């Protein structure tokens, strides 16, 4: 996404309510900075994230999409993140198969206690996406006028 003529990667982060969203809050509590272009959407569980949401984000101008959930075994709903893990493994492998840069998508397990990990992950992911440049391969020109 272009901001004032400069490329700044827009990152959409889907965070589960119980672990990762709380982890993001903790990053805030500890004033651990990460790029402002990371925007968080709260979902009850990472398993609520539909592949359609991810593609939609890319269509609308996101340059990277990250899904954060509880660590496997720690899901508030016991099994949600296990489904996420399978779904995203397959989806991301498919996107890679279609030639969409694999660095644009990621799943990271962030617990409520891992504020530092949340910030570090976002910094690192943003950097990786920044290195790729703008999302061209899943863009929708209609959204880019």
């Amino acid at each position, binding site marked *: 996404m272009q901001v004032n003529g400069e490329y700044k990667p827009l990152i959409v982060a889907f965070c589960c309510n119980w672990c990762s969203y709380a982890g993001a*809050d903790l990053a*805030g509590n500890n004033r651990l900075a990460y790029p402002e272009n990371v925007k968080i959407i709260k979902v009850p*569980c990472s398993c609520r994230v539909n592949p359609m949401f991810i593609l939609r984000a890319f269509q609308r101008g996101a340059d990277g999409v990250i899904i954060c959930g509880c660590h496997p075994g720690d899901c508030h709903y016991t099994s949600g993140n296990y489904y996420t893990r399978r779904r995203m493994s397959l989806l991301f492998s498919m996107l890679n198969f279609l030639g969409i840069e694999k660095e644009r998508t990621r799943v990271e397990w962030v617990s409520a206690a891992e504020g530092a990990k949340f910030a570090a992950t976002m910094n690192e992911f943003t950097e990786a996406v920044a290195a790729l440049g703008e999302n061209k391969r899943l863009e929708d020109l209609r959204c880019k006028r």
Partner: protein
Amino acid sequence: MQRIGVFVCWCGSNIAGTVDVQAVSDALAHEPGVVHSANYQYMCSQAGQNLIKEAIEEHKLTGIVVCSCSPRMHEATFRKTAAAAGLNPYMVEIANIREQCSWVHKDMATGTEKAIILGKAAVAKVNLNAPLTPGESPVTKRALVIGGGIAGIQTALDIADAGFPVDIVETKPTIGGKMAQLDKTFPTLDCAACILTPKMVDVAQNENIRIFSYSEVTDIKGFVGNFDVTIKKRARYVKEDICTGCGLCTEKCPMKNVPNEFNLGMDNRRAIYIPFAQAVPKVATIDPEHCNMLKNGKCGVCAKVCAAGAIDYKQQDEYISEKYGAIVAATGFNPISMDKFDEYAYSQSKDVITSLEFERLTNAAGPSSGHLVCPSDGRHPHTIVFVQCVGSRCASCSEKGKEYCSKICCMYTAKHAMLTRDKYPDTEVYVFYIDVRTPGKNFDEFYRRAAEEYGVKYIKGMVGKVSPENGKLHVQASDLLADKQLHIEADLVVLAAAIEPDKSARPLATMLTASMDTNDFFTEAHPKLRPVESPTAGVFLSGACQGPKDIPETVSQAGAAAAKVIGLLAKDKLTGNPCVANSNELMCNGCSSCERVCPYGAITYVDKEFRMPDRTTKVRRVASVNEAVCQGCGACTVACPSGAMDLKGFATKQIIAEVDAICK
């Protein structure tokens, strides 16, 4: 079209310091649906809440967006505010512009821009919100306590005292747990049996309490207020209601060489046994592994001597189904195995023992009738070495012990050392410690007394190696303060083994769909604010299954868990979480994908008749969600290919609206 009010909180300077709140409320005022936009110093204050209430009334708002701190902080507050002004509480959305904006960004321009975008996303979502009403479900007024140690006993007693029926399920033949095995308790040194056994009797006599001993929970279904539990009552081959506990059978049984688990294998019991004199229920149990009658059909002595005729070799496991409104996990702890600590020669010498074994050795009802002797030959030990932190505070990479501090070892070691010196002043007692941790009422005084008054030799350092040599134990250790390596010829080495959750906890957590940490301790719903509740509604935590703790702490947590249970059972109806899945039956094709991913079994299928657009009717199999069971994870929404399954409060359209708003 919604009429949305936006309220931007300054949070003092917490938000306003990095976000131009005026700019945010101005920008959001132009968003579709927004009819009112304001900002205020502290939205969560009474004055701030009044501002919201007044705006709801004045502008006839149908939805509100509060740009403030994390919804984890004040979503509930603002929902109540909305409800008080007559607005459905689920028409409130929070834009987290503090934790996820002002606190992580330094620059006013970027902070403001991001806050506006987060606000826009929240507005976009509220535009698609619908009022939600939580469903109601009845509460079965009976509690289940799993585990009959001091934690379970105390919880059960407190619940029963409030007038609610409670069942205790205990895997052992008797309740009492670890505390029943202890000798004295720190820091007051009262005898464990003296304070525990009256409580056990109370349990037995309480009309509201049923004890399922020698039993285990095999299945849990349902949800808060309505659990369906299956309890397997293992066959003990003794009719519980007839056995008088006279104990004659346990004297006459010819199978004499069964290791006595109550004394940690330091002596033997019979194949038919009562674990200890004050057992509750005081009923004999036949150990089918060792009973000749059950194994080979030969013997039958116990049946012959039983005057009451309580022996029943044909008894079968019995499955009991019961409904409960609340479940308390009180599965307790065990010392870890010493297998991985070969340097302490636990497997090589009988005179290297764990602290729990030491408790039994000093207990008057123990294998040595309370005489402190070396288990190898029964001699009186003159030099005793206590080693602390065996398996506690180990780095995870070492893969030997546990990373956490087991919390109770410092105090019981001080107790052991003190009692030994008190009773046997001729013994030399060394305690090797890394740190002595005594944060508790009268704890440090207790430890200092052991060192100062009883002459226990506390040495800062660790034992590196114990080797049995000529009937003695050669202890090689470091004394860090003297900067010396010590070599002690000891008679007895006592290892303060780390404690870990009972092995039954993990499968129980799976049945309860309750979460656990990596150490298999149950996770609390909130580490500070909800320490006795599991995140799974209706499941409560009591005692060491939640983390290492001593008796006073266990008892207070047990009481707290009981209070929570009583609070739950006192309700006639429960209101659920309205953010549940719902299936659009017109779209559903009945493929079962959602049912398969639902962790709660909340989805069932019904055959429904549909009137088709071409004026015919057809019967189709469609999914139906039990709203009381659904916890709202959303797994089904993605499993559903036709998009028939959606989640209230986190609907596909709402999330996509947020995505769109963010990506603008």
